[in-house]
């Protein structure tokens, strides 16, 4: 079986699972759902591993070339639309980047869907099947997004993940807040979708192509050796425009400023959903997009810089909000925004493979954190306020231990995976040597310190100290094996995962970067020795802050900073008033316009026109109906009269 059939199978397994569960799931015994739901994801995973096997020893002929432009990886299955010069093939681009993303999606996704078998066990039959249907739809959509070989199918996948995110956030549709959150996420995502579609229009309008290979081949003509940071070129305006519009899509999907407000609310969804969609996979689609469009962003330097700035600002901004959140899932949500900010920062300065390594690392430790948090929430009977936990470590040692590993990986402690990925990004920014990179490095390093602090706060408040008097459960039970094993597997991966790429220390292997070199280019500059030293210092400081949080929030020997600055506390608790600003700037004016329209336009003008047309027709019919007297001789008289008139006219003409 060739790679093209394998790639198709990767897509078909989750699609088949979703169709089966959607059609028959609720009528079949629960065990079928439990096997089919995760099973199809694992089947996909096996296919991806087979694909990976074929790609492992694949190196570019020329090291400085974009390999996929040779179209060795571009499989066209059939022509989907053919209309004049507008042609859309159904093609998949199965290059190393796509395989890498598929590996994350199906691997981490398989673990999370398996975990859901236990987490969702309290749902009744139909809801249970519905949940796994949505999950399989999501996996399919996400795989389509990363495998698509042209912009049309990219947009299809992009919109479908938005849809499945909407369905899963609103899974508990009986809750008003869940429905509102789902709608908010959908609307925010559609703003991004509009940007994506406009970008595709711009590119098609300029290059008359829809496939990546076709567009990149033309666009990179200016860059014969590829992967050049080309300065602004007068012909590159369409590319700048398209790159900015793509950034709109990426920002919305990845919950970056200013389209980030949906992600914290999305925590209304079930916890496995938060782990899979809102931490490990969907929200990283923006990073994937920038990486996939690397040939465009390398030319569109202004849009490229904007990516880095957006990422850096979001990283800092989200981390500060995370300090004051009390809902354990919301802390993780802001932390996710912050970490994705790092990835944007990395791909924005051109350190693509560093960004993708962090994507992989983040998928490990953030999925781990969410699932461990899910175990805690389960044990606490759906209580999510961590001030009401306290002292859980002794009662939930395995979950607590896994949570600690995830937290330390998030902080970036040697030798956990988070250290190697985060410090590689910061090291790359530190040693690139242009002012923008240095600026985002400063923000990134500051964020790393804050990350240490809020992560410590979260862990200490939940797991250390004495049990809170408000705790809903006195003696919580550890989660069942089906919910514990995936967590422990991810914990193990978070511990050893870093050793595949130790470039942050300047020595050792760099498996991810080498693997992705053929898709996003090799690392473009060497890290200097200073970066290693600065990275280690950052790591030590943020670890110290992790432990300092214990003093602040458990022992309370140190007075908390918020006592000195209540205004700052309030600013952070209100999340910098973003929701309020959007409410005042967009929602209220829209409401006002809508109300005005309903009152002054809809009634008098539109209804007036419609009803008036009807009334006029009725009146005309009524007056015309007077001629229909029903008297036969009347009709004859009119007929004869008409004939006479016609005859007279004829005579007058001839005369």
């Amino acid at each position, binding site marked *: 079986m060739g790679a093209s059939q394998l790639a198709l199978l990767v897509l078909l397994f989750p699609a088949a699972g979703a169709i089966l569960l959607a059609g028959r799931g609720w009528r079949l015994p629960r065990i079928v759902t439990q096997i089919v739901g995760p099973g199809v994801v694992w089947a996909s995973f096996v296919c991806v591993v087979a694909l990976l096997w074929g790609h492992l020893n694949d190196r570019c002929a020329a090291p400085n070339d974009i390999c996929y432009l040779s179209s060795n990886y571009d499989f066209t299955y059939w022509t989907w639309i053919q209309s004049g010069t507008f042609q859309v093939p159904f093609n998949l681009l199965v290059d190393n980047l796509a395989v890498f993303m598929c590996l994350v999606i199906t691997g981490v996704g398989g673990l999370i869907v398996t975990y859901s078998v236990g987490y969702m066990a309290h749902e009744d039959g139909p809801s249970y099947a519905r949940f796994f249907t949505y999950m399989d739809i999501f996996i399919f959509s996400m795989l389509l997004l990363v495998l698509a070989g042209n912009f049309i199918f990219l947009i299809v996948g992009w919109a479908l993940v938005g849809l499945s995110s909407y369905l899963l956030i609103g899974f508990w549709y009986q809750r008003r807040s869940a429905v509102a959150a789902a709608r908010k996420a959908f609307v925010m995502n559609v703003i991004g979708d509009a940007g994506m579609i406009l970008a595709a229009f711009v590119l098609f309008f300029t290059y008359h192509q829809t496939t990546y290979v076709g567009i990149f081949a033309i666009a990179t003509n200016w860059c014969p050796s590829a992967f050049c940071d080309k300065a602004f070129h007068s012909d590159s305006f369409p590319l700048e425009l398209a790159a900015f519009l793509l950034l709109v899509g990426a920002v919305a999907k990845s919950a970056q400023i200013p389209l980030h407000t949906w992600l914290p609310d999305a925590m209304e969804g079930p916890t496995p959903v938060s782990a899979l969609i809102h931490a490990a996979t969907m929200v990283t689609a923006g990073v994937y997009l920038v990486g996939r469009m690397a040939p465009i962003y390398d030319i569109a330097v202004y849009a490229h810089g904007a990516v880095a700035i957006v990422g850096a600002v979001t990283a800092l901004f989200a981390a500060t909000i995370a300090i004051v959140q009390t809902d354990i899932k919301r802390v993780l949500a802001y932390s996710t925004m912050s970490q994705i900010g790092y990835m944007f920062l990395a791909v924005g300065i051109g350190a693509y493979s560093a960004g993708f390594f962090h994507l992989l690392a983040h998928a490990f430790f953030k999925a781990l954190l969410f699932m461990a948090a899910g175990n805690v929430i389960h044990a606490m009977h759906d209580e999510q306020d961590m001030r009401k936990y306290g002292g859980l470590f002794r009662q939930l040692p395995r979950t607590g231990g896994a949570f600690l590993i995830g937290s330390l990986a998030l902080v970036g402690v040697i030798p956990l995976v988070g250290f190697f990925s985060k410090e590689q990004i910061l090291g790359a920014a530190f040693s690139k040597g242009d002012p923008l990179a240095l600026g985002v490095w400063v923000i990134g390093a500051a964020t790393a310190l804050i990350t240490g602090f809020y992560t410590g706060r979260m862990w200490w408040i939940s797991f250390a100290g004495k049990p809170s008097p408000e705790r809903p459960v006195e003696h919580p039970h550890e989660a069942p094996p089906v919910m514990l094993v995936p967590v422990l597997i991810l914990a193990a991966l978070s511990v050893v995962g870093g050793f595949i790429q130790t470039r942050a220390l300047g020595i050792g292997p760099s498996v991810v970067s080498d693997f992705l070199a053929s898709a996003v280019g090799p690392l473009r500059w060497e890290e200097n020795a200073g970066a290693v030293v600065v990275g280690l210092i950052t790591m030590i400081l943020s670890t110290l802050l992790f432990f300092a949080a214990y003093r602040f929030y458990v022992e309370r020997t140190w007075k908390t900073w918020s006592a000195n600055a209540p205004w700052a506390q309030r600013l952070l608790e209100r999340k910098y008033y973003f929701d309020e600003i959007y409410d005042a700037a967009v929602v209220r004016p829209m409401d006002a316009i809508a109300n005005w329209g309903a009152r002054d336009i809809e009634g008098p003008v539109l209804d007036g026109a419609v009803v008036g047309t009807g009334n006029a027709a009725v009146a005309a019919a009524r007056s015309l109906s007077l001629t229909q*007297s*029903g*008297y036969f*001789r009347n009709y004859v008289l009119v007929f004869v009269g008409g004939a006479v008139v016609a005859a007279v006219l004829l005579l007058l003409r001839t005369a």
Partner: protein
Amino acid sequence: MTLGGSHLDASWFLILSAILFTLGAVGVLVRRNPLVILICIELMLNAVNLTLVTFSRQLGNLEGQLFTLMSITVAAAEAVVGLAILVDIFHTRDVEDVDELSEMKG
């Protein structure tokens, strides 16, 4: 024009035809008895037939006469349909006046 040895101008026939047609038309308009109206329609048709034959004769062309034969056939068919409708109406009620048949007024 020579007719039976004597000369008779075509206009006489046309005048007769016009008179017959007018009588028929006026009859349709002023009479109320449905049967009489049908008879008046026949009168109008025959006035037209007369015109056709007249011109046929004058122009020495047989097409007019052929057309008259056709017209007589159609008139017969039309009379059948008209009378059938009337018979059907008379089955349900006695109609003296066509103005009574005005249910279709708007």
